Structure formats: C-alpha cells, structure tokens
C-alpha cells in the first residue's frame, strides 16, 4: 500500500510538472527580463517608432544602457511616447542628448541610440528627450527614391 502511495505521488508530481511546462510555454514568461532593469526613467516622443517594442534596448555608442519600458500614443499630438528605463550607473547624460531609432543590421530588431550632446546639465528621472529622429521605414525611402527617379526623367 505504501509503495502504491509513493507511485501515486511521483505520478502527481510528473503530471504537475508537465502541465506547468505547457502553461509556461502558453503564458510566455510574462515577467522575464524586465525586472532585471532598474534605474531612472526618461521619455521621448517620436513621429514613428517602426518596429520598436517593449524591452527593446537603449544603446549609447553601441553599448546597451537601458530598455524601453512602455510605448503609448500621446492623445493630443498623436505622437508615440516611448518610456525608457536607463541603468542608474549612466546618470550623466547631457540634457541636449539626441535619441534616434535604428535597426540592428538589415533584418535585426530595432533599438534607440542616444547620442550625447554638450550641455552641462544632465537628464534626471522623468525628463523628456526633446530632440528625436523617427524610425526609418524602408518602403518610404524606396518610394522617395523611385519618385525622384521619375521626376528627373
């Protein structure tokens, strides 16, 4: 009787582990990767964010210094407001820094590159980066190029 009980417990653990595995696959790791970022938040407005998503990296000179934490639409200007968390060790970004959206390689994911300005004042928690450059949409460039060709002829 005891051996039977032992088998039943092991089977119960097996079924639980299997169902847990399927649940984890279904629910898609809801919190992995975000909790590790701590620091101060900045916002920036863009006309077009392209394929930028939550958790896209923020880079400076190619080094990852933070993550995008949320993306919303400003209800008045209809621009995209990107909230980002910058690691607290990089707390001396100049106030007139420039944020632009780039693509890693031709097929890679998009990220925000911050180019530091020359201001002596620094960005603090909750500040807004005013100078931004939107994502480059490949189709727009191609159509511009084609129209220029057509106009030249």
């Amino acid at each position, binding site marked *: 009787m005891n051996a*039977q009980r032992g*088998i*039943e417990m*092991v*089977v119960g653990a*097996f*079924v639980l*582990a*299997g*169902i847990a*595995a*399927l649940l*984890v*696959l*279904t*629910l*898609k*790791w*809801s919190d*992995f*990767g*975000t909790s*590790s*970022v701590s620091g101060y938040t900045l916002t920036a407005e863009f006309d077009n964010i392209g394929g930028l*998503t*939550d*958790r*896209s*990296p923020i880079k400076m000179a190619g080094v*990852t210094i933070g*993550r995008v934490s949320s993306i919303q639409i400003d209800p008045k200007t209809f621009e995209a407001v990107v909230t980002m968390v910058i690691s607290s060790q990089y707390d001396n970004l100049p106030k007139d820094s420039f944020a632009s959206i780039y693509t*890693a*390689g*031709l*097929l*890679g*994911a998009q990220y925000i590159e911050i180019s530091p300005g020359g201001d002596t004042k620094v960005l603090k928690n909750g500040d807004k980066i005013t100078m931004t450059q939107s994502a480059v949409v490949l189709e727009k460039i191609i159509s511009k190029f084609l129209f220029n060709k057509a106009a030249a002829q």
Partner: protein
Amino acid sequence: MNERQNGFPNSFLRGLAALGQGAMAAAAHTGQMVMFTGHLLWRLLPAWTRPRLIVQELYAIGVLSLVIILISGGFVGLVLGLQGYNILSKFNATESLGVMVALSLVRELGPVVTALLFAGRAGSAVTAEIALMKTTEQLSAMEMMAVDPLRRVVAPRFWGAVFSMPLLAGLFSLVGIAGGYFIGVVVLGVDPASYWGQIQQQMQPVDDVLNGVIKSLVFGAVIGLIAVFEGFNAEPTSLGISRATTRTVVLSSLSVLGLDFILTAWMFGA
C-alpha cells in the same frame, strides 16, 4: 524440370508470388489492427472505473521516460542554440535566436523527437510486457477468470501513453529552450531580454503551443495503439516477442514521421 526452375518466366513468377504474399500479409496485419482497435475502443472508457491502473501505467510509461527525455531535450536545445547562432549571426539577427529555438522546439522537435524516444523507451517495453504475458498464458488465465485482458491490461497502457506524451513533449521543449538560452546568452553573449522578448512577442498560445500539444497527443495515441497491438498479437515464442518489439519501434517511428508531415501540412501549410 531443371530448366523450368531456372528460366526467366519461372523466377519472375516466383518473385511475383513473393510480392503477393508480402502484400497479403501486410493487408492481414492491417486488418487485424483495425479489428483490434475496434475491440479496444469499447474498453477505453470502462478502463476508467479503475483509475489506479492508469496511474500505475503513467508511472511506468511516463515518469520512467523522464530522464531520457529531459537529457535529450537539453542537448537538442544546446545544438539548436549553436547552429541557430551561427546562421543568424550572418544576418546580424542573433536577437531572434530565442524565437527560432522556441518555435522549432514547440512546433516540431518537441513532439517528434519525444515521440521517437518514447517509442524506443516506452513503446518497446509495453510490447514486450504484453507479449510475454501472452506467451506465459497470463492473458488466457485472465480470460478463464472472466477478467477482460483488453480492459485490465491493454486499455490502461494505451491511456498511459496518450497522457504521457504531451507532458513529456512540453518538458522536452522547456528544457530545450533553457539549453538554447545557456548556449546563446550565457556562452555566446546574445542579449537576454531579446531572447525572451522575441519569444514572448512571436510565439502564439494557440497556433504554436496548442498545435504542438495536439501533435503529441496524436503521436501518443498512435504509439500506444501500435505498442499494445503488437504485444497482443505477437507470436507466443521468444522469437515472436523479439519480432513484435522490433516491429513496434519501426512502425511507430515511421508513423510518427509520416503523420507529422500530414499534421504540419494541415496546421501550418496552405
């Protein structure tokens, strides 16, 4: 007499006869399997009146297969991580490593590799067990005591296979994704948030995970059916048991790979 035996028409006819014999044997085997499936279907639900037996089979078939499944899943994930990284780094898209590893595991490799290992580890054991029960006339003894061997012996093993497969395949995929994470993020330096983030964005609960579960349920049912049938239908000799075991592994591996193509075409194709 001699010239007729060695002449062209005669050897051709003999070959033809051998082919016909093989075809008829295959047809008879298939027919027996269909009949057996019909008999078994009527016992599948009544087998639930004794759930203890099914739990015992879940232990013998599922839990005891865990070790081989988890170790293989880990290694498959490691290899996927390495190969995927090498290919994706050519396109500067190593951020997509996570989603590549996760989708290949959940959609294909999880169910299929688990099923192949499962057929070798558990299917062969079930066949050998039932075939030996038949050889030692335990099954006939049961019938003498008015115990239905299909319901007492065969149906619980079938259910054990059906329920074990999706659980094992899910664990296989999960361990594989962790293996890919180890190679990609810890060893090769892929961005960890991209690894998980891309999986989160692109893996769909219904399209990917549910379809993987359906696949593994189908594979579990097919392997279970073949294993119990070959055991029940084995020739009651030591050679018969060995042949039945071999047939289980060969037949289930072939059916899993063939069915996988059909299921994939139905789920993801067109």
